[in-house]
């Protein structure tokens, strides 16, 4: 899909903050791509990720993947687990790429201390620079389902219809992770996945309506 390579490679960038499950979500996406016979590379820029810093996880798959890194301007899809983090990495997107964005905010101490401001309206700022954004509140959906940690399954649901393979492949890979867990956990994740899928779909239709 990427224009920057002669190799037919799909580039997905997953971003968020340490602790949100960005790396796990990317790993599940990688497993789905592997299940379909793709070559896969996954890499992180996650220095001190466990400490609430910036995490960006690169996933590339296709017939043969060389460099594990997505070059700026060549990501096909940007999956943003946090509003400001989606903004931070938007330049990595190819011009006609898509941002799937959780509007939920995680405000860091440097903002609480008054040293920096959190952007007033991240969606509007992305629109202003001509980026195709599909915004939805994955954090709220996860909380409604009873556990904020379902957020990454919600996010994976949101990207499910924007991959070069059927959503069911991804869903199977997610649920396989919980195969050894209680049935209710599997069911919660199934619902989170469906809710994310529906939220992205609704948001996309709303975006198309306003465009």
């Amino acid at each position, binding site marked *: 899909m990427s224009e920057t*390579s002669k190799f037919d490679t799909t580039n997905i960038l997953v971003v968020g903050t340490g602790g949100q499950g960005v790396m796990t979500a990317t790993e599940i996406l990688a497993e789905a791509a592997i299940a379909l016979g793709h070559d896969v590379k996954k890499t992180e820029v996650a220095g001190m990720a*466990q400490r609430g810093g910036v995490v960006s996880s690169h996933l590339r798959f296709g017939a043969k993947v060389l460099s594990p890194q997505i070059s700026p301007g060549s990501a096909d899809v940007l999956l943003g687990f946090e509003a*400001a983090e989606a903004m931070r990495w938007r330049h990595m997107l190819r011009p006609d790429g898509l941002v799937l964005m959780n509007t939920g905010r995680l405000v860091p101490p*440097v903002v609480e201390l*008054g040293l920096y401001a959190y952007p007033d309206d991240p969606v509007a700022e992305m629109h202003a620079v001509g980026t195709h954004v599909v915004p939805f509140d994955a954090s709220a959906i996860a909380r409604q389902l009873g556990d904020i940690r379902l957020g990454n399954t919600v996010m994976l649901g949101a990207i499910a219809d924007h991959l070069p393979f059927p959503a069911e492949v991804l869903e199977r890979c997610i649920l396989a992770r919980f195969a050894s867990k209680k049935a209710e*956990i599997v069911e919660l*994740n199934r619902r989170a996945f469906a809710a994310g899928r529906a939220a992205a779909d609704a948001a996309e239709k709303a975006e198309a309506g306003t465009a």
Partner: protein
Amino acid sequence: MTAQAVIPIAGQAVTGRLLMSGNEAVARAVWEAGARVAAAYPGTPATEMLECVAKYPDLYAEWSVNEKVSLEVAFGAAMAGSRSFCAMKHVGMNVASDALMTMTLTGVAGGLVIAIADDVGLSSSQNEQDSRFWPRFAHVPMLEPADSQEAHDFTLAAFELSERFETPVILRLTTRICHVKGLVQVGQRQERPVAGFAKNVDRWVMEPRAVGRRLPLMFDRERRLRDAAEVSELNVAEDGIDRRVGFVTSGPAYMHVRESFPDAPVFKLGFSFPLPFDSLRRFAAECDRLVVVEEVEPLIETELKAQGVTLSGKDILPRSGELSPQVLKPAVARLLGETVAQEATRAPLAVFPRPPTMCVACPHLGVYYTLSQLRNVTISGDIGCYTLGFGQPWNALDAVISMGASMGMALGLDKGRSETEKDKKIVAVIGDSTFLHMGMQGLLDIVYNRGNVTVLLLDNRAVGMTGGQDNPGSGRDIHGQEAPRVDFVRLVKALGVREERVHLVNAYELPILLRTLREETKIPEPSVIITSQPCVLIKDYHALKPYTVVEDKCTGCGNCIDVGCPAIHVTRRDRVKKPSGREVDLAFVRIESAACTGCGLCLKPCAPDAIVHVDTLAMPIKIIRKSAELSQTP
């Protein structure tokens, strides 16, 4: 980042390809190679190698107290004829090199592979040094994989090479190998006979006369290794139709070169020291120009230039950081006099920085909040999570260089103080694992030389920064099994700190911590204040009932924000004029109760007592104590 080892289920051979990080792939190959001993000290990006090795059966694995000890353990096993493995981050070899520089003379009996992981791009390190100097310095061979599959295959090849030439072999990795996941074809473990230790003082006792006999053998070995590199399958000259530029490269840079210039000839060095000069000269002769693409230092470049090869290298490429396609393409285009293709890149949007923070309820929060209250103090720091104390809101750490250096630097700051600094307090802050790694000697030096230093020993029973690994302070071994636990109070007393000057303080008891610090910094002799609350990421930590803010009691003083806990958020700001006419900024807060684990640090600075326990019945969602990784969903 915890690693998941892909280990074989008992009695069931894993076949096919597995998604593995470079670290996991190396660990797998160490097991397959029949290694019997593996040792390391944790350090990003190398940590997961030993974490994974330890999950395999049939070999001994340990967290050593530092990299030098880990290498000596691995070397001892190799003397006994066992295959052995040692892993470290780049700076670890600075510590271990004393052993390396002489074991190159003795050589090894069983295969010894030393994995050194460079942090090219500085994801979590204090420098970006290039470990490819070590094989040159120590006259040992080096292999450099370019992805996870090669990390696996080259580890196996390294053991073979090590035994064939009876030499330690360095496996050079970088962050972009260690932490990249790719598909790996794995094999099964091959058990090997172990010869046992053969007494031979001419070989194993490196006194000067014996060294004199071993030196020529080492140089002869290097010559034979160069011959081996010339014919090694790990060095590949790839042909290309666009011969305007040929590339010589190694490690992850190869992937970037191949991606950026799919039609160019590329000499990929996998067995990258000693360099196969003849092969490289032949390759150079077939290209119009030669560009050496190497992360970080111009080592291949320098050696090839000395061989009379004309080439470009660091004249067109950066001396630091990764050489990714976005760096390579424009640099080579300029070399060819081409206009740099306009990439479809756009400027990043301006967003606040998000530096790493300490965790919610981290015991270090109270320490740094307290240190930030001290005046006229210089704080010498060390390597670990507590390095973050230099930043906002604490600004309570003034220097950090290397493991354990807080001790020596503090003594030097004390002895080297100027006339105007006579009353300056000198405090050193060091974590438990760093203290055991290389801090004990420094404290002994402070005591022996009568330094006026107050040491804060932050014992959180874990190597926190790398993910909470065990160490002699945690009382558990690499498998999480009970192990002898060091007693820090007795240890520092044994080093000579007087009994009255040793204090064990609860890191959450801020008034006592502040009082103890004030008193000890006034007394002109060495003192040690030990805090002993566990890292919130390890199982020793137990969450308590979370807190919340009573909205109409909060006066907006903002004192609680200065603790630096990421669970405290500002709800609104205001500016008021005091009766004195002075304008004051107010910040009203809430506590993210779902993240709060009830440490109570924020209660101490809250004058109006606006922070109270959450009514557990009214808790909207479950308490989140650790990272919200999907895999940990209950």
